[in-house]
């Protein structure tokens, strides 16, 4: 997909998520006290309300919880169809990421497919996309 993705305004909560791809890392906020994940990222843990929370690099592997094949050009430069999926991360099981499944035919995507993060950079933001895990 070559269309211009929405530009996110960075702040202290979301900066690691949107720029971690520069170092190949997918960062999800994790609590240093209870170990729980908080996404969307915030300054306070949503499980135990601790302030001891910050970005934690996860493995970037997961499964497709559900998906849709989008056919509508919501913006003039969109190339359709493409897959919008909700991925459940292996090592942050209560976190979902809405993303695109790339590098395969849209018909090849299914629920429970194993996927791995890949990053797409546009103007300093690193968008975490996913592709089907090798061996599938």
């Amino acid at each position, binding site marked *: 997909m070559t269309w211009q*993705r929405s530009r996110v305004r960075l702040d202290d909560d979301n900066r690691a998520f949107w720029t971690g791809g520069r170092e190949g890392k997918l960062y999800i906020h994790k609590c240093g006290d209870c170990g729980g994940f908080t996404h969307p990222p915030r300054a306070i843990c949503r499980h135990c309300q601790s302030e001891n929370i910050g970005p934690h690099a996860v493995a970037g592997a997961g499964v497709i*919880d559900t998906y849709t094949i*989008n056919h509508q050009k*919501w913006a003039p430069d969109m190339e359709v*169809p493409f897959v*919008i999926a909700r991925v459940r991360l292996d090592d942050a099981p209560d976190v979902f990421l*809405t993303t*695109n499944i790339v590098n395969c035919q849209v018909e090849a995507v299914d*629920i429970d497919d194993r996927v791995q993060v890949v990053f797409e950079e546009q103007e300093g933001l690193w*968008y975490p996309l996913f592709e089907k895990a090798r061996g599938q």
Partner: protein
Amino acid sequence: MKREAYISGIGMSEVGVRLTRAPLALTVDAIREAVADAGLTLAQIDGVSTYPGKMSMFLGFSPIGVDEVIETCGLKTRWHTGAAESTAQLGAIADAAAAVRSGLARHVICFRTVYEAAALARPDEYPPMNRRDGVTGNSQWVSPFGAFSAACWTAQFATRHMKRYGMTREQLAQVALNDHRNAALNPRAIVKEPLTLEKYMAARLISTPFCLYDCDRFTDASTVVIVSAGDAIDEVKATPIRIAASAGSVERYSWDQAEWASAYPTGRDLWRNTDYKPKDVDTVQFYDGFAFQPITWLEGLGFCAVGEGGQFLEGGTRIALDGELPMNTGGGQLGWGRLHGFGFAYESVVQLRGAGGARQIKGDPKVAVATSGGGPMAAALLLARD
């Protein structure tokens, strides 16, 4: 004696696409009609409630604020609210019911004005919401991936139902088919003709499994209900419809984190707040901005088990006007227009008063459920004629 709250009057403006009259004028039309329907005068109105309040960043979605209604109608109010962070659209009516029950007001105008079609045609006056630059808040978790629309978010819930529970497109189609059939009997609806399954299956896809007919379309309209206190009901001339219970909840507020639609917890809660049971319900008016949402309400309210909503719709006979559970009798949002939640309260009152004309359900309907919201936020009203 328990203090009761009633819907005492209903009103609606012209419903259209790319209307030119100002949204405030549409709002006043609907208010006038509702106040007259109740047999009240503006001087008796002492409260105003709306969802979501004026949204300056997204004017077509909500162009009118509470203050404009109070000033324009010369109201002397004691209580008002207009909140986006409430329990979805019908929460504005549930909040008004709570206000009149607690004595904060006697007669409350509840309104929802939409102007999305007109706004799209007049971008200089109504700038479209910016989804591309400087995205913040919960939009940032979906918009960068091309999921600009709630169609894409809701479609993922629907895909899961197809893959996990075997829901078919033919079953899903029954929502749009039923809506179109009923809208054709409703003089105020945008849709004038029934829809065939062949035409549905041939329609272009928006976001699978949704095709064009599974998505409501931008509409210009204002819908009003008047909520009145039980101890002021003798001032009302119309048949009052009691707000027997309400419920509202939020799953994870960000759409991307909500594993299940909030219709499920909201549906369960509604029955905790009343002695009525699902078997007592004569008609349901289920939010259907997207065709899958009524399925979540059927399941969430316990009209069928989780995963069996598709089968419930099979063939469309159970939800038809002469079926066991007539649904969206006025055409829903897919047929009537995107009235954004308030149409379901309006139509419940029409049916419970027996005023549906060509679309009136048979018998002596006394209990209806109206719902709004379809993703992580939801509200439900249980309405009864005593």
